[in-house]
C-alpha cells in the first residue's frame, strides 16, 4: 500500500477536509487523514482556534466527532472562548459530537521515583475516542507536559509513542505547539510529527497586525508554499490562498458598457471585458469617482450587483455628489443592487482589508467591485505590499469573473504614468484623466493608456461632467497643441474665420491666374499673327532674290559670249 502511495498520483493520499475557509485549497484538500498534523506558532496566534474549528466543522459538517484534549485551558474557558465564533460547544458536547477534556498536572505536587510512562494519558485519550467514536483529535498544547512532568527523556519517548499510537488508531490529529527560538517548537516536536506541519504567525507592522499561515511541510502532497494571510473573526478562521490561484482563470469574451457611450466607442465600440480590471488614474478632482459611478450605474441598470469600497468618502457624501452629475445611486442601494463599504485605509492592516474585501465579495456576490481609490493604501514605502495585496485581490476577482474598477489618485507633481507603475501589470484597461490648463481654465481630458485584447482608440477626448452624466468630446488638436474648453471653442471660431479668409484668397488667386492665362494666350495669338506676316514677306523676298541671281548669271554668260571669251 505504502509503496504504491509513493509512486502513484498525489491525490491518492487521503485527506481530511477542514472546511476552514481557504485552508483546504492550500493543502490540496485538507489535513492528512488518519495522521497527526503539527500546528505551531507563538502565543496568541490562533492555534487553539484553528484546532477547535477543525473539530467543530468535522463534527457539524462531516459527522466526524472530535476529541479536544486541552493541556492549558479548562473546559469552561474553552467553551467561552469559542462561543464568540458562533460555536456552541455545550450543545455539541451534549450531543456527543465533541468531547472536551482538560488535562491538568499540578506542578510541584508531583515528584518522581524511577521510570514511568504516559499510559494514563493513552487510556484517557482512548476512552474519549471510544466514548463518541471520534475521528478527529486535538492535543492542545501537549508541550505543557514538559513543564509539569519530570524527566524530558521519558516524555519525548512517550510522545513519540503517542503520535505513532494515534496514527495506528487512524484518527486525524492536530497537535499544537508553541514556537521555539530558532526551531518550530520549543521541544522539537516537529521531529516526531513529520506528516504535516503548519506554522502560524502574528506580526505587527506599522501598528497593524497581520496574521499569516504557512505550510512548512506536507509529506506526500503538494501544497502552497507561500505565507498566506488569515483572519479570525466572528465566522472563525479564514485563510486567503489567493496567490495560489495562479493565472489559469478563464477569460471572458463578454463586453460590458462603461456607461459612457463615447468611452465604449473608444474601447473598440463595446466597452470593458467582463472580469477585467479597470484602472482610472488622475489627479485630484479629475472625475475618477464619477467615471466609476457611471459604470456602477450602468451595471445596476443591467440588474447586476455592485460592491463599492470607498476609502475616502462616506456613502452618503458619495451619493449626494453623484446626484449633481445626474446619477441616482440611492435607487440601486434601495433595490439591494448596490452595497457600499466605507472604511479608512489606515483603520487596519492590508491583510485585514484584503480578507474583509474577499469575505464581503463572497457573501454579496457582486458582478462589479469598485475600489476607490486603491492608492489610499500606500503609506510610505509599502508599495510592494500594496501591489501584492492588489495582485491577490485581482486574481480573486478574475477567478470569480468580477469586473474590478479601481481608481488611483496621482499627485500633480509626479508623472502619472510612473506613479501607478506598481500596479500597471495587473490592469487590463487603464484610463488616464488629465487636467489641461489653458487660458485660465482647467479642463479634463481622458484617454485610454492601454486596454488589453481590444483595438482601443488612441485619441484624447475632452471629458465633461454635466448634470446628465459624463460626456466625451473631441478635443482640438492643431498647431498650438491640444485645446479644450473655451480655448477649444475660441480656437475653433478663429479657425473658421481663418478658413474663410483663406478660401477667399484662393478664389482670388485662381481668378488672377485665369486672367493671366487669358492675357498670355492673347499675346501668343498676336505674336503668331505677326510672325506669319513676317514669314510670308520674307519668303517673297527670298523668291525675288533667287530670280534676280539667275538673271545675273544669264547676263554674264551672254556677256562672255559677246566678248568671245575662251574660258
Amino acid at each position: 500500500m505504502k509503496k504504491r502511495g509513493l509512486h502513484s498520483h498525489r491525490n491518492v493520499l487521503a485527506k481530511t477536509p477542514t472546511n476552514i475557509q481557504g485552508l483546504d485549497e492550500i493543502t490540496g484538500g485538507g489535513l492528512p487523514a488518519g495522521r497527526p498534523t503539527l500546528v505551531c506558532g507563538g502565543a496568541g496566534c490562533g492555534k487553539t482556534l484553528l484546532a477547535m474549528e477543525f473539530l467543530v466543522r468535522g463534527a457539524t459538517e462531516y459527522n466526524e466527532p472530535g476529541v479536544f484534549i486541552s493541556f492549558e485551558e479548562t473546559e469552561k474557558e474553552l467553551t467561552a472562548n469559542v462561543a464568540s465564533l458562533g460555536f456552541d460547544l455545550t450543545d455539541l458536547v451534549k450531543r456527543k459530537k465533541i468531547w472536551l477534556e482538560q488535562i491538568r498536572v499540578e506542578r510541584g505536587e508531583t515528584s518522581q521515583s524511577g521510570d514511568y510512562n504516559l499510559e494514563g494519558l493513552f487510556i484517557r485519550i482512548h476512552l474519549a475516542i471510544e466514548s463518541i467514536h471520534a475521528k478527529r483529535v486535538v492535543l492542545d498544547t501537549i508541550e505543557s507536559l514538559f513543564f509539569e512532568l519530570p524527566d524530558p527523556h521519558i516524555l519525548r519517548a512517550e510522545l513519540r509513542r503517542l503520535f505513532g499510537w494515534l496514527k495506528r488508531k487512524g484518527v486525524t490529529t492536530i497537535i499544537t505547539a508553541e514556537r521555539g527560538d530558532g526551531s518550530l517548537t520549543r521541544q522539537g516536536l516537529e521531529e516526531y510529527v513529520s506528516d504535516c506541519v503548519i506554522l502560524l504567525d502574528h506580526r505587527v507592522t506599522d501598528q497593524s497586525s497581520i496574521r499569516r499561515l504557512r505550510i512548512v511541510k506536507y509529506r506526500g502532497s503538494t501544497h502552497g508554499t507561500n505565507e498566506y494571510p488569515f483572519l479570525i473573526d466572528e465566522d472563525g478562521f479564514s485563510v486567503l490562498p489567493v496567490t495560489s490561484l495562479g493565472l489559469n482563470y478563464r477569460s471572458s469574451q463578454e463586453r460590458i458598457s462603461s456607461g459612457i457611450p463615447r468611452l465604449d466607442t473608444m474601447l473598440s465600440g463595446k466597452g470593458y471585458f467582463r472580469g477585467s480590471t479597470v484602472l482610472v488614474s488622475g489627479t485630484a478632482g479629475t472625475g475618477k469617482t464619477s467615471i466609476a459611478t457611471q459604470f456602477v450605474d450602468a451595471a445596476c441598470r443591467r440588474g447586476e450587483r455592485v460592491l463599492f469600497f470607498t476609502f475616502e468618502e462616506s456613502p452618503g457624501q458619495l451619493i449626494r455628489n453623484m446626484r449633481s452629475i445626474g446619477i441616482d445611486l440611492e435607487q440601486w442601494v434601495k433595490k439591494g443592487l448596490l452595497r457600499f463599504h466605507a472604511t479608512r485605509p489606515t483603520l487596519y492592516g492590508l491583510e485585514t482589508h484584503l480578507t474583509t474585501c474577499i469575505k464581503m465579495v463572497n457573501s454579496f456576490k457582486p458582478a462589479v467591485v469598485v475600489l476607490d481609490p486603491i492608492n489610499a493604501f500606500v503609506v510610505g514605502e509599502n508599495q510592494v505590499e500594496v501591489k501584492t495585496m492588489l495582485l491577490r485581490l485581482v486574481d480573486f476577482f478574475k477567478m470569480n469573473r468580477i469586473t474590478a474598477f479601481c481608481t488611483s489618485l496621482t499627485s500633480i507633481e509626479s508623472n502619472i504614468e510612473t506613479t501607478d507603475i506598481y500596479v500597471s501589470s495587473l490592469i487590463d484597461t487603464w484610463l488616464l484623466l488629465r487636467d489641461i490648463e489653458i487660458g485660465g481654465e482647467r479642463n479634463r481630458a481622458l484617454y485610454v493608456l492601454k486596454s488589453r485584447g481590444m483595438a482601443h482608440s488612441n485619441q484624447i477626448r475632452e471629458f465633461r461632467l454635466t448634470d446628465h452624466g459624463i460626456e466625451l468630446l473631441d478635443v482640438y488638436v492643431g498647431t498650438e497643441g491640444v485645446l479644450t474648453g473655451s480655448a477649444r471653442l475660441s480656437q475653433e471660431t478663429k479657425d473658421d474665420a481663418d478658413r474663410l479668409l483663406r478660401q477667399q484668397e484662393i478664389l482670388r488667386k485662381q481668378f488672377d491666374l485665369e486672367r493671366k492665362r487669358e492675357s498670355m494666350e492673347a499675346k501668343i495669338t498676336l505674336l503668331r499673327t505677326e510672325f506669319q506676316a513676317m514669314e510670308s514677306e520674307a519668303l517673297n523676298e527670298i523668291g525675288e532674290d533667287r530670280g534676280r541671281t539667275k538673271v545675273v548669271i544669264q547676263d554674264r554668260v551672254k556677256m562672255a559670249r559677246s566678248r568671245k571669251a575662251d574660258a
Partner: protein
Amino acid sequence: MGIKQKKVNSRRRKGQPSAGRRERWVLRLYIAGKSSRAVTALRNLRVICEDQLNGRYRIEVIDLLKNPRLARDNQILAVPTLVRKLPLPVRNIIGDLSDTERVLVGLDIRERSAGRG
C-alpha cells in the same frame, strides 16, 4: 482534627509527628495492567511501607485498564502514579518507586533535608 493543624504548618514538620501519632496512611497506586513496571512499583511500595509505616497504612491499587474513567476523574497521566490520599495534603509520585529516598521525601515520610543528607 490533627489534619487542620497541619495545613498551616510547613511540610517539613508533618512527616515525623504524624507518624508518631499513629495516623493512618492511605496510599493509592495507579497502574495500567499487570506490567512488570506495575509489579515493581507495588513491590517497592510495600517494602517502603513496611519499613517506615509499620502497619499504619493501607494500599489501594487501581488498574486503569479496568477503570479507565478514574484516569480522568483523578487527573492521572503517568503510570505508575502513587497518590498519598491521607494524610493530607495529597501528594503524587510517579515512577516505579525504585528510588526509595525520593519516595520517602515525596511522601513526606522523611524530611527533605534529612533525606538528602
